[in-house]
């Protein structure tokens, strides 16, 4: 009960903070005489943005498709490679160091190349999203599947259980919390990747929209586009967090108690 009150209270604090933030923004524009082509006020963003709503919604759909498609492909590839590398000593000595070294290159730097190879369509954007999401997922998955406690390893060995049974009864559930660290990190990367890919070369999507309206000196519309991007990012992240709560409730409650 106490915890609940604390939670509501902290929730209200956040909402109050946001209201204060936007009020400050709204009234500091006339106060400091900031020209609207530099920074528009929130009310103006809402007003002008809603006139462009159809386009914004359509572009949100375009960017969402690229993001979600890329994220899902990265998820499948990342977990697949993660498991393969964890269980094969050959891959651990070849692919793993290769991935670690590639992790150091900023993947987004490949974006112009992909656009020039694959054109303006959906595919190069999806590939870029896959690229920025794959590494956090695969590296965390490798960590996850390699960090089983020594006792649990000895325990299942002493039962003589098959590798398959051990995998589903022990290794997989034990690995999920660490896997989700990668999934969440990748969920944040995903919209970033799609947006930048659209900046570089596209004819639709929120990234395209933002770069065009900024070029036309319309920061109000750019902010409207950023707002939709934020909503998209939050939705994806929220979905992944919800999946975490559903799949590993024991982990969430463990963290809560340890606080």
């Amino acid at each position, binding site marked *: 009960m106490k915890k609940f009150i604390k939670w509501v209270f902290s929730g209200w604090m956040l909402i109050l903070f946001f209201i204060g933030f936007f009020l400050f923004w709204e009234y500091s524009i006339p106060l400091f005489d900031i020209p609207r082509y530099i920074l528009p006020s929130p009310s103006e963003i809402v007003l002008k943005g809603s006139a462009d709503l159809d386009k914004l919604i359509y572009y949100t759909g375009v960017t969402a498709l690229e993001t979600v498609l890329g994220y899902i492909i990265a998820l499948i590839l990342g977990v697949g490679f993660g498991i393969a590398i964890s269980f094969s000593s050959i891959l651990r000595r070849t692919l793993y160091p290769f991935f670690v070294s590639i992790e150091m290159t900023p993947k987004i730097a490949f974006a112009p190349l992909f656009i020039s190879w694959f054109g303006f369509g959906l595919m190069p954007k999806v590939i870029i999203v896959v690229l920025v999401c794959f590494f956090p997922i695969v590296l965390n998955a490798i960590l996850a599947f390699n960090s089983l*406690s020594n*006792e*649990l390893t*000895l*325990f*299942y*060995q*002493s*039962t*003589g*259980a098959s590798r398959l*049974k*051990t995998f589903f*009864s*022990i290794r997989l*559930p*034990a690995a999920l919390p660490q896997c989700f660290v990668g999934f969440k990190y990748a969920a944040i990367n995903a919209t970033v990747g799609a947006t930048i890919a659209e900046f570089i070369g596209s004819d639709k999507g929120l990234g395209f929209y933002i770069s065009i309206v900024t070029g036309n000196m319309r920061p109000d519309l750019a902010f409207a586009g950023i707002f939709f991007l934020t909503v998209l990012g939050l939705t994806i992240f929220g979905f992944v967090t919800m999946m975490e709560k559903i799949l*590993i409730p*024991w*982990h969430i*409650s*463990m963290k809560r*108690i340890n606080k």
Partner: protein
Amino acid sequence: MKNFIEVTELKKVFGSGEDEVHAFGPATININSGEFVSVLGPSGCGKSTLMLMVAGLLDSTSGKVEFEKKLVNGPKTDIGIMFQDNTLVPWRTVKGNIELQLELRGLNLKDYQEQINNILKSVNLDDFADRFPNELSGGMQQRAAFCQAMIHDPKIILLDEPLGKLDAMTREKIRADFQKLWMVKKPTVIFVTHSIEEAVQLSNRVILITPRPGKIDREIKIDLPYPRDLNVKRSPKFAEYVNSIQEVFHKYGVI
């Protein structure tokens, strides 16, 4: 059967070069079937190492372990083993954790429901069957782990300080229960403990290990009648055994 378990010149050295740690041995131990043997020794003398080698979960540096003259060269699966750190998984309840042992062994859960209830009752955890390990105290977790290790009714039991985290009273009760179970089913038991009194109360024989690298200082046969209840524990002979063991460890400066 005589010399059911034979440990011959068994030795373990971890690492190599500068990092080399001589953890245990060489030591020779013979255990008859149905015998209850305690292994007693100071911290770090290699008791856990010995137990893992007997269970086939750790390779020895030299020497061998045999069960009924058959060499152990991989994990032994026909045993019940309880490790020093518990093997409860956080995503299963107490009952689910006990069932994990059965599932991994491919046993039918339905056949064991009554046994699960009984063993939980015997360690006073029947009210906590549906709780998760992180909702239990350290001592309760240890009791749950004890149930997990014993549920498949093993004929060979290896326990590494199974009662270490329990309060004196619970400890006393589980000792008595375990002794009863041993008297009825006569499994072969290797019991690692820090408690001299516990070793004397439970065992046919106590093996005293020297400080690291652990070698066998001596073996003491405990000639007391079972069940060893309070009356036996108050007897002068019991105190004599405890004293003589204390003297050995006093000599090594560990007590």
